């Protein structure tokens, strides 16, 4: 990845954080994949001298990192913003225990919801859990600041939150490199007053937290990461994270107080800065986090009365919000057909959801993964999606609310990795409390949405080495599910029959829809037939169109064109497969009743 000089690389924020973690002497790192955090561990796992793993969920990941910290080594936990909700239980009490080895928790937030179900602002966790939080502005800073975060963690006996956003994680920039520091020797030490959070020791530690926050506020005053960039004082800015970049481009002349540690805040520094400027504007994405706390100090400033609270910012939005008259005219957008993401050609989920799409009376309680895309037309086969693992609990709750009226009409759909993340407890609840919803586990043998990470059911670890795999059938049976049926979703007819039968049973049962992700290297290599349209046989019934495969397209015809092509004049169009896009699943061929889709025999 070298650029021109060997000590400077061009890296994404996530690659820079992996590098920074390695240089800072991290010895144990755990996380759960989630956009935009995934590439941190994917990169860190290729470094020597650091143990990395995918945990089943973020709570476990943080507990693993905390344990490593208790053993005296530097540890890292990585997750996306909503993952920190899952990990918030250990987080809030790790604030009490503090650390032995440095502990940093990375939260990768997703303003604009590029790949998320919400755009929560995790700076609020720093306030609520009474923890320091760092926030870099670009990849180079992310690497440097991570070293500082570990120093602060050890010096102040605290876990440290490290917030990035999509425009740090997935931005590439020039990054300096350094040497790895000397590693701490792991050791076992029993410190019940610090590690055992019974009410007694917890009360003692509660007091220590207050002292720690006081000390950290003092640190914030002198910390190099909280710096004043001199400039025009008629209108000056306080900003942090990627918003800093937008301020620098929109108002390059202005004085700026750039905060690298966004919690706790340097009260004196902010007051001094505010005293020397005429107008103070706080520029931040999402919540008025800095603004609220700055106003609480009694410092007048403007912020969200100008700057949008929703979505990402950019230099245009910042300039427009502050100086609407000075913004040039733009070309208006033209209305065009949208291009949302779609399940891939040959995706096994498509067959399963096609079957569900034919059951109009069934409520499909969905979950987080590639298969959430089944909610979009033409399948439109998902009726709820909230968070990881929610499908099973929501289906059970609906069943209990609807009683007899819901029987045979409620299905939960959840991916293999999501099931292990937080679906298992929901299934235990459904069985224990005598539910009747059908639970479908979409087992495509990988965590696909985030780009093919292994999980406890896939049979390999983060490095791709063989690992123990959870047997989903046995697990479900051990929970007490009486009927566990495995189907091949590419076989639409058989799958449809099983689903109908199992939904109607009126007891919680599990169907495992099992076929590997079509993009897995083993699947890409496997020779499959390619399907071709025999257009002269096509009657325009659109049966194949209804599965929404990106390799199949509809070509409309006028009556004259239809006749010209030898069709009846009433035929409205015909289907065609783009053979280069076809992945050979054969789902469409099974749906065609007119022999208009055939497999192209292996032509070598």
């Amino acid at each position, binding site marked *: 990845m070298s650029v021109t000089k060997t000590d400077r690389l061009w890296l994404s924020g996530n690659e820079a954080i992996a590098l920074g973690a390695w240089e800072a002497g991290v010895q144990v790192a755990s996380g759960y994949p989630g956009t*935009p955090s995934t590439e941190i561990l994917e990169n860190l796992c290729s470094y020597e001298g650091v143990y990395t793993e995918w945990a089943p969920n973020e709570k476990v990941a943080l507990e693993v990192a905390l344990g490593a910290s208790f053993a005296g080594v530097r540890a890292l936990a990585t997750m996306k913003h909503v993952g920190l909700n899952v990990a918030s239980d250990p987080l809030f009490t790790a604030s009490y225990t503090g650390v032995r080895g440095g502990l940093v928790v990375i939260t990768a937030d997703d303003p604009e919801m590029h790949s998320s179900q919400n755009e929560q602002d995790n700076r609020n966790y720093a306030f609520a859990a009474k923890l320091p939080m760092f926030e870099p502005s670009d990849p180079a800073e992310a690497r440097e600041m991570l070293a500082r975060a570990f120093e602060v963690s050890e010096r102040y006996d605290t876990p440290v939150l490290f917030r990035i956003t999509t425009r740090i994680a*997935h931005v590439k920039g020039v990054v300096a490199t350094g040497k790895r520091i000397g590693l701490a020797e792991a050791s076992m030490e029993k410190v019940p007053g610090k590690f055992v959070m019974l009410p007694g020791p917890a009360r003692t530690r509660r007091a220590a937290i207050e002292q720690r926050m006081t000390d950290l506020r003092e640190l914030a005053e002198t910390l190099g990461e909280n710096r004043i960039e001199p400039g025009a004082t008629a209108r000056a800015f306080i900003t942090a994270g990627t918003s800093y970049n937008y301020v620098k481009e929109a108002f390059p002349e202005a004085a700026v107080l750039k905060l690298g540690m966004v919690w706790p805040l340097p009260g004196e520094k902010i007051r001094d800065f505010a005293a020397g400027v005429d107008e103070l504007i706080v520029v931040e994405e999402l919540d008025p986090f800095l603004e609220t706390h700055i106003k609480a100090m009694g410092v007048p400033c403007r912020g969200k009365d100008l700057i949008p609270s929703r979505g990402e910012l950019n230099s245009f939005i910042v300039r427009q919000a502050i100086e609407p008259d000075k913004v040039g005219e733009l070309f208006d957008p033209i209305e065009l057909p949208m291009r949302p993401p779609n399940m*891939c050609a040959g995706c096994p989920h498509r067959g399963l959801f096609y079957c569900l799409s034919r059951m109009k009376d069934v409520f499909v309680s969905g979950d987080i993964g590639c298969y959430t895309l089944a909610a979009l037309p033409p399948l439109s086969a998902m009726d709820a999606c909230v968070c990881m693992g929610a499908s099973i609990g929501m289906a059970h709750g609906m069943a209990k609310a609807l009683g007899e009226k819901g029987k045979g009409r409620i299905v939960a759909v959840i991916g293999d990795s999501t099931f292990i993340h937080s679906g298992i407890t929901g299934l235990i609840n459904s069985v224990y409390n005598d539910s009747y919803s059908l639970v479908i586990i979409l087992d495509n043998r990988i965590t696909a949405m985030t780009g093919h990470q292994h999980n406890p059911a896939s049979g390999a670890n983060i490095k791709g080495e063989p690992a123990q795999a959870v047997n989903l059938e046995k697990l479900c049976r051990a929970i007490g599910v009486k009927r566990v049926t495995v189907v091949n979703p590419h076989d639409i007819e058989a799958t449809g029959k099983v689903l109908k039968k199992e939904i109607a049973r009126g007891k919680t049962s599990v169907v495992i829809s099992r076929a590997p992700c079509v993009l897995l290297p083993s699947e890409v290599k496997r020779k499959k037939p390619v399907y071709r349209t025999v257009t002269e046989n096509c009657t325009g019934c659109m049966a194949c169109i209804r599965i*929404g495969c990106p390799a*199949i*397209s509809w070509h409309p015809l006028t009556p004259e064109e239809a006749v010209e092509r030898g069709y009846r004049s009433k035929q409205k169009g015909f289907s065609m497969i783009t053979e280069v896009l076809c992945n050979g699943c054969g789902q469409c061929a099974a749906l065609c009743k007119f022999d208009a889709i055939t497999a192209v025999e292996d032509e070598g």
Partner: protein
Amino acid sequence: MKQSGNILFTGVGGQGILLASELTAYAQLAAGYDVKKSEVHGMAQRGGSVVAHLKYGERVYSPLIEPGTADIQVAFEELEAVRYLPYLHRDSAVVVNTQKILPPAVATGRASYPDNILEELRARHIHVVAVDAFAVAREIGEIRTANVVMVGAMSNFLAVSPGIFLDVIDQRMKKGFRKVNRKAFAAGRDLVYASRRHDKKR
């Protein structure tokens, strides 16, 4: 040499857009610029609309191109060439691959693909260079080099010398792919160079 600039890469997931933007970025770095590039992973790889922002200059702060300031757009699909219109300005150059990939609503018969969509750009006096990158790549004998053909075509609008691009291809691509990608770059470059000269004569 131009002190700074903004290049927008647009297209559909799976078209090799990220590689094209990566090659361009490394060429700019080798030419001595600071470079930032922003992209979005996750949902984007599932056949959705994909966009990468590349900014270069002496010191680049924001990783995002401001609307109205993209100097060049490299579009791998015709509809996508027009989707990001608010990012362009009157002197923008749009190098577009003349390929149509039907969005789901069109492929399933619920909407139609607009006719002569590139005219929307020309009507606004934006300089449009249409390239059949697949035809060029097929001629070279490796259809997968279409994205490098596009980089070659785009390179005409940059001050970075073609030699730097060829060096980057040598440094960053696997051995077996270098020769064919060098060819693809050169073919793309020549294609537009010829058409630009033609424009000037007129």
